[in-house]
C-alpha cells in the first residue's frame, strides 16, 4: 500500500515537473547559432522627437529568422515594439503615432532587447517575456522551441531636433531662389521691360470664347481631378479667372463641372469675382459651377454626358488629369469644340497634344496668369524661373562632364567630385 502511494506521488511529481517544464523558460548556453547578431538603438535624427530607431546587424545565415523587439523604460515598464520582423529588414522604428501618441516620450531612457527565433513567436511566450524585468543574453527554450535573446542596448533617449540638417541643400537652394526672385522683382520695379515668349494656347483663349459666343454655345471649363492644394489646380483656377472675365465680356455662359467640393466653391467665387470685375455680376449663375462626383470615372462619365448634351463651343481642360484625360478630350473633339488643355502630368500630355487644338505644356500652364496679365511684377517671376533653369542646365552639364571623367576615364578625383555633387544635391 505504502509502495503504491509512493509510486503515485512520484508519478505525480514527475508529471507536474514535466508539464511545468513545457511552459516555462529554460536557459541554455549558446546553442542557437547567433554569433555576429546584435542590436543597437539611437534617436531618429532630424525628427520632431518621440522616435527611436533600432538597427541590427546579422550574419547571412540568419536571413530567414524572425526578430521580436522588446522595450524597457527607465521605470521598469516592458512593452513589445514589434513582433516577428524578418531579420533581413534590418531596422524598425519605435515611434509615437496618432494611434499610440504616448509610445516613446522624449527625455526618458529606453533599453531594447531582441528575441531571435526561427518560428513566429508564441503569444504565451510574449506575455512571459513582457513580465520579466531582465533577460540574460543567451539561448532559451520554450515549448520545445529555441530562441535567442540579445543583450540589452545601451540607454537610448529620444529628443526633438531644432533643425533638419538633411535639408540644408534645400535651404541653400531656397536662399539662391529667393535672391534671384528678389533681384528680378527689383528690376521690374525699376521699370525694366521683361520679355515673355508667345504662348499660342493662351492667345487662343479669346478666339475660343468668341467662337463659342458666335455659335451661341456655352464654354466648358474642366479643372480635372485635383484638389485645391494641388498647384496645377491653383494654376487652373487663375486661368479660369481670366477666361470667366472674357466670358462675362462676351455675355456667354460658362459651365464648370467639379470633382472636389472645395474646388467647386473656390471656382464659384473665382467666376463670381471675374463677372463682377467685368461689370456683369447679373450674368453670374452659381448653378453653372456644379459638383459631379469624387469618383474618377464617374466624373469622366458625368462630364462626357454634359458635353454631349450641352455641346459647348469651347472646352478648357486646365488642371490635374490622369487616366480620364483622353476620355474627356476625345469627347470634346467629337462634338467639334475648340479645345485648350494644360496639365503638369507628363504622362497625360501626349493625349492632350493628340486630341486638343492647343496644349499648355507644364510650365506654360503655370505661366498662364502672368501671360494673360503681363504685369511687370508678375513677369519678373518668369524671368527668375528662366535664370534658374539656366543654372540647373549648367549643373546638369557639369554633372555630365564630371561623370564622363569619373567613370569613362576612371579618374579618382572626378569620382570624388561626382560623389560630392550627388551628396550635395540629395535631400
Amino acid at each position: 500500500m505504502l509502495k503504491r502511494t509512493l509510486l503515485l506521488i512520484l508519478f505525480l511529481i514527475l508529471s507536474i515537473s514535466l508539464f511545468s517544464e513545457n511552459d516555462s523558460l529554460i536557459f541554455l548556453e549558446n546553442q542557437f547559432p547567433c554569433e555576429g547578431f546584435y542590436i543597437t538603438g539611437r534617436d531618429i535624427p532630424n525628427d520632431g522627437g518621440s522616435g527611436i530607431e533600432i538597427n541590427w546587424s546579422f550574419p547571412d545565415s540568419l536571413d530567414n529568422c524572425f526578430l521580436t523587439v522588446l522595450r524597457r523604460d527607465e521605470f521598469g515598464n516592458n512593452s513589445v515594439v514589434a513582433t516577428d520582423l524578418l531579420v533581413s529588414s534590418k531596422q524598425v522604428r519605435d515611434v509615437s503615432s496618432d494611434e499610440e501618441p504616448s509610445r516613446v516620450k522624449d527625455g526618458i531612457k529606453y533599453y531594447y532587447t531582441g528575441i531571435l527565433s526561427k518560428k513566429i513567436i508564441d503569444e504565451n511566450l510574449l506575455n512571459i517575456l513582457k513580465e520579466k524585468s531582465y533577460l540574460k543574453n543567451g539561448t532559451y527554450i520554450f515549448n520545445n522551441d529555441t530562441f535567442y535573446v540579445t543583450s540589452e542596448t545601451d540607454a537610448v533617449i529620444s529628443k526633438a531636433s531644432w533643425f533638419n540638417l538633411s535639408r540644408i541643400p534645400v535651404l541653400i537652394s531656397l536662399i539662391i531662389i529667393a535672391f534671384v526672385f528678389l533681384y528680378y522683382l527689383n528690376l521690374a520695379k525699376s521699370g525694366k521691360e521683361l520679355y515673355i515668349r508667345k504662348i499660342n494656347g493662351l492667345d487662343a483663349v479669346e478666339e475660343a470664347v468668341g467662337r463659342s459666343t458666335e455659335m451661341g454655345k456655352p464654354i466648358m471649363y474642366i479643372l480635372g481631378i485635383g484638389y485645391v492644394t494641388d498647384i496645377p489646380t491653383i494654376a487652373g483656377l487663375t486661368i479660369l479667372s481670366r477666361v470667366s472675365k472674357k466670358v462675362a465680356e462676351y455675355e456667354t455662359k460658362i459651365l464648370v463641372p467639379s470633382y472636389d467640393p472645395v474646388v467647386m466653391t473656390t471656382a464659384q467665387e473665382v467666376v463670381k469675382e471675374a463677372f463682377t470685375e467685368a461689370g456683369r455680376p447679373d450674368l453670374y449663375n452659381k448653378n453653372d459651377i456644379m459638383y459631379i462626383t469624387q469618383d474618377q470615372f464617374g466624373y469622366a462619365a458625368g462630364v462626357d454626358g454634359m458635353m454631349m448634351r450641352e455641346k459647348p463651343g469651347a472646352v478648357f481642360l486646365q488642371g490635374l488629369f490622369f487616366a480620364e484625360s483622353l476620355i474627356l478630350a476625345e469627347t470634346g473633339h467629337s462634338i467639334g469644340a475648340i479645345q485648350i488643355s494644360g496639365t503638369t502630368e507628363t504622362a497625360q500630355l501626349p493625349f492632350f497634344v493628340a486630341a486638343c487644338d492647343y496644349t499648355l505644356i507644364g510650365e506654360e500652364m503655370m505661366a498662364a496668369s502672368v501671360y494673360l496679365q503681363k504685369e511687370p511684377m508678375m513677369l519678373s517671376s518668369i524671368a527668375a524661373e528662366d535664370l534658374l533653369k539656366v543654372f540647373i542646365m549648367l549643373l546638369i552639364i557639369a554633372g555630365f562632364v564630371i561623370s564622363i571623367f569619373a567613370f569613362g576615364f576612371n579618374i579618382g578625383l572626378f569620382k570624388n567630385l561626382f560623389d560630392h555633387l550627388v551628396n550635395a544635391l540629395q535631400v
Partner: protein
Amino acid sequence: MLKGKGIPIFITFLTGMIMIISFFIPHKPFGDIEKISLTWYSIIAGFTMLLGVDSLIGMHFRKLKRKDENWFFSLVLIIGFTATVVVGIIETVRFGTAFDERSYFTYIYNYFIVPLQSTMFSLLAFFIASAAYRAFRARNFDATLLLITAIIVMLGRVPLGEQISPYLPKFTEWIMQVPQMAAKRGIGLGISLGALGVSIRIILGIERSYLS
C-alpha cells in the same frame, strides 16, 4: 492698416512663411503644423462636401421639376443617391461598417459601381485608337517622326519585334530611356520651377487672381 484684400494676402503670406519654416524645423510647434493644417483641411473639406451634395442634388431636382430634356436620368441619379446613402447607414448600424462583406452596400459597390468604373476605363482603349490615328497621320515632318518612333516602340514591346530584329527591343529601350526620358525630365524641371514661381507669387501677394 490691413483692409479689403490685404487681410487674405497677409494671412496667405504668414501661412506660407510658417509652412516654409516648419519644413526646416521639426521641433514642436513647427513640426506638427503640416499635419494640423491637413486636419483642418479635412474638416473644411467635410463641410464643403455638403455643399457639393447640395449642388448635385439641387441641379437634378431642378431638372426634374422643370421636366427638362432627359429628366429621367436625373430621377435615376436621385434614386441611386438616396438608396446608396440609406443602405450605407443601415448597414453601418447592422455591421459596424458599411463595407462588411455581407452588407448590401458592398454589394452595390461591387456590382454597380465597380462595373461602371471598368466600363468607363475600357472606353479609353477606343479613344486611344482614335487619338493615335489622328496624331500619327504623317502630315508634316514632326508627325512623321512621331509615327516612325511610335511604330518602333510598339514593335519593340511585342514578341513580333524581337522576331523582326533582336535590336528592335534594345532600340525601343534606348528611345524610352534616353530621348523620351530627357524630354520628360526637361518638362518636369520646367513644371517644378513653374510651381515654385506660382507659390512665390501667391505668398508674396503678386498673384491675386485666386482671391475672390
